[in-house]
């Protein structure tokens, strides 16, 4: 046990060190129930044995893999010991014990500060903030403490082992305080990484990257997809690199950029554009918005000359504005039409008007038409 802990600690977050820790963990741990191959960072979802599951189960698998390979990794948040409000941590307390998986009081600022302190000792932790709407009491801790610990100490201290998980986005009936998408606030903060997956297999690999990344990470989970998004998820332990977008559907005429649940809206709109307009859309999932993969987007826009960006958050100051700005810097002479943004309105997230508010395939389709007929 001591050696296993020591290995995990010494390895820090270096990839090779982690592989060593994993090897050590396997060699020393007889209680590990299933031998899972560790693949490290992969460009594509790995082949091999896979299990069909939904998003919350994939997140559960990711956390389990992280905790199996690092005895110092702990998980806490409001009601997580009982499985969490969205069931993401089901069974983890039973498997790893109450010392490593426990409930916190309802105090997000305290939870975040506590997580930062734990991670500052060189260990990793997963702090669940039950809804992204509740992240604002923790905003100061995340933006002022987590993001700046390394810089202000001249590299002596950091809290890179911390990952904040939080369900975000529209869910059909969430109203003002169970629906927001606050990713853009955090994208404005150097020192953080901000990730949002679109599907179960993506979620597992991206979450493992966040937990093992030597920087503080925010992992926003589109709550509408927890049960709705189902696909084969590799049984292996794999990490999808943060900061690399994925071209989900290749196309020639219009680039559609999104992240999280909006990627599915884009895919639907791309199919409509193909069927009704004969327009070929290239759909890009950014996967992380800090850092974000401007190269992949620019390469696509240089090919298509037209771009639509979608997100659920309000338009003004939303992350689409940043993407649009970067595109016009990089692709100015190649643009054939104004950059289209399809976003939530500049209102609080509405309860009764959610269907009007959230970008859907029809709104994106309209934007594609506007871009192609300019």
């Amino acid at each position, binding site marked *: 046990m001591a050696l296993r802990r020591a290995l995990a600690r010494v390895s820090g977050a270096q990839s090779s060190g982690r592989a060593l820790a994993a090897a050590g963990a396997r060699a020393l741990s007889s209680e590990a129930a299933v031998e899972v191959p560790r693949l490290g960072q992969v460009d594509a979802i790995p082949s091999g044995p896979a299990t069909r599951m939904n998003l919350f189960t994939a997140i559960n698998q990711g956390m389990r893999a992280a905790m199996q390979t690092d005895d110092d990794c702990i998980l806490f948040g409001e009601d997580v010991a009982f499985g969490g409000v969205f069931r993401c941590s089901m069974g983890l307390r039973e498997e790893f014990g109450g010392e490593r998986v426990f409930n916190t009081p309802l105090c997000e600022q305290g939870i975040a500060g506590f997580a930062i302190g734990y991670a500052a*000792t060189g260990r990793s932790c997963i702090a669940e903030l039950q809804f992204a709407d509740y992240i604002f009491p923790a905003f100061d801790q995340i933006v002022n403490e987590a993001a700046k610990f390394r810089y202000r*100490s001249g590299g002596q201290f950091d809290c890179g082992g911390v990952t904040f998980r939080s369900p975000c986005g529209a869910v059909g009936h969430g109203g003002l305080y169970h629906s927001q998408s606050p990713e853009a606030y955090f994208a404005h903060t150097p020192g953080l990484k901000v990730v949002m997956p679109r599907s179960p297999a993506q979620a597992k690999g991206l979450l493992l990257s966040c937990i093992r990344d030597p920087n503080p990470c925010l992992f926003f989970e589109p709550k509408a997809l927890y049960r709705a998004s189902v696909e084969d998820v590799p049984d292996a332990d794999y990490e999808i690199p943060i900061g690399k977008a994925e071209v989900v559907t290749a196309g020639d005429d219009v680039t559609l950029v999104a992240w999280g649940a909006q990627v599915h809206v884009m895919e639907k709109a791309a199919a409509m554009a193909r069927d009704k307009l004969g327009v070929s859309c290239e759909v890009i999932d950014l996967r992380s918005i800090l850092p974000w993969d401007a190269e992949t987007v620019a390469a696509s826009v240089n090919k298509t000359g037209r771009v639509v960006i979608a997100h659920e958050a309000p338009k003004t100051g939303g992350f689409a504005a940043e993407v649009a700005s970067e595109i016009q810097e990089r692709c100015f002479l190649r643009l054939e039409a104004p950059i289209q943004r399809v976003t939530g309105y500049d209102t609080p997230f509405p309860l009764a008007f959610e269907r009007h508010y959230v970008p859907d395939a029809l709104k994106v389709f309209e934007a594609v038409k506007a871009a192609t007929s300019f």
Partner: protein
Amino acid sequence: MSSESAEFELAVPLEYHNVEGPAATSATATKEELLDVHAMMHRIRRMEISCDNEYKDKNIRGFCHLYDGQEAVAMGMRAAMTSRDNIIGTYRCHALQLMRGDTVSRIVGELFGRAGGSSAGKGGSMHFYSKQNRFWGGAGIVGAQVPVGAGIAFADRFNAIAEGASRDGPFPITVAMFGDGAANQGQIWEAANMSKLWHLPCIFFCENNQYGMGTSVERHSSNPRYFTQGGEAIPGIRINGMDYLSVREGMKWAKSYVERGQPLFVEVVTYRYHGHSMSDPGITYRGKDEVKQMRETKDCIKLVSKRIVDSGWASEKELKDREKAIKAEVAKEVELARAMPLPDAEELYTHVLHNETPKFIRGIDIGSSRVA
């Protein structure tokens, strides 16, 4: 040998809330200890006065919070703790860094923004750290360091138990410091509540210097008895922060209580001679007479000096000579700091993330631009 050690009366006894501890109306100290404390306190004070002068000469810019007046607090903590114990402090942290083993030149170098400063010139007045001596820094945001301290305390307890320690400790302790101005921040109680629930070896340490910036405790706190902040749940102790021996005795007891996995509120009642920061002359919300009276009747260095002289361990002249020598030593250290080079421009971009990608920095002319 009897002259090498003596017993001293404590003017203000320790006061407890919801817990019984030793009355401690007196404390023993040796000649060697008090001479060392006298020198160290004087070093802190000279360093802070030098900072004041350098600030006025515009060699130190930005925000700067001085510790003079409160020296007994840092020294009493030092006497009660080991380097295995953790301290996470407020922005008023120059003295804590010195107490945790750093040098005057590195500290002043940091205030000058030099590469040889304690945080490589990237932190400034509020951000000192010492990894090997487990000083987790000053924090620029009032109160934000306190829940971070609870997390550090959790890690120590978690680690000790995993390595076979009893669930009742003893564990290394964490002192999460805050001022009276931060005491009514919600996150102080959030952290204290978690610490009680999870049996964390954490001291919630209120350095009550009587003023939250320019507002006196009576005006900013409905309950200025900060050692009772834990209410029914968490006990507390109030210590006279102007007396080194009181802080030492109080903190020794506090450590013995907390290292068993029981959080505690500690209030040290102290006084800062300077204003809150350099932009505050410190005499608009309190009278000059008040500061003068504190200096004359309550000063922590005077108290130690008196005890040394009364015990016959040194004459007043000998102490003055020692003070002069320290003054010269600090002046020399300040010059060392002044000679340190500024950080390279590339440092703008380092330590944002682990393994950063290169970034372009525009120089005054394009030729002096560079990639970090």
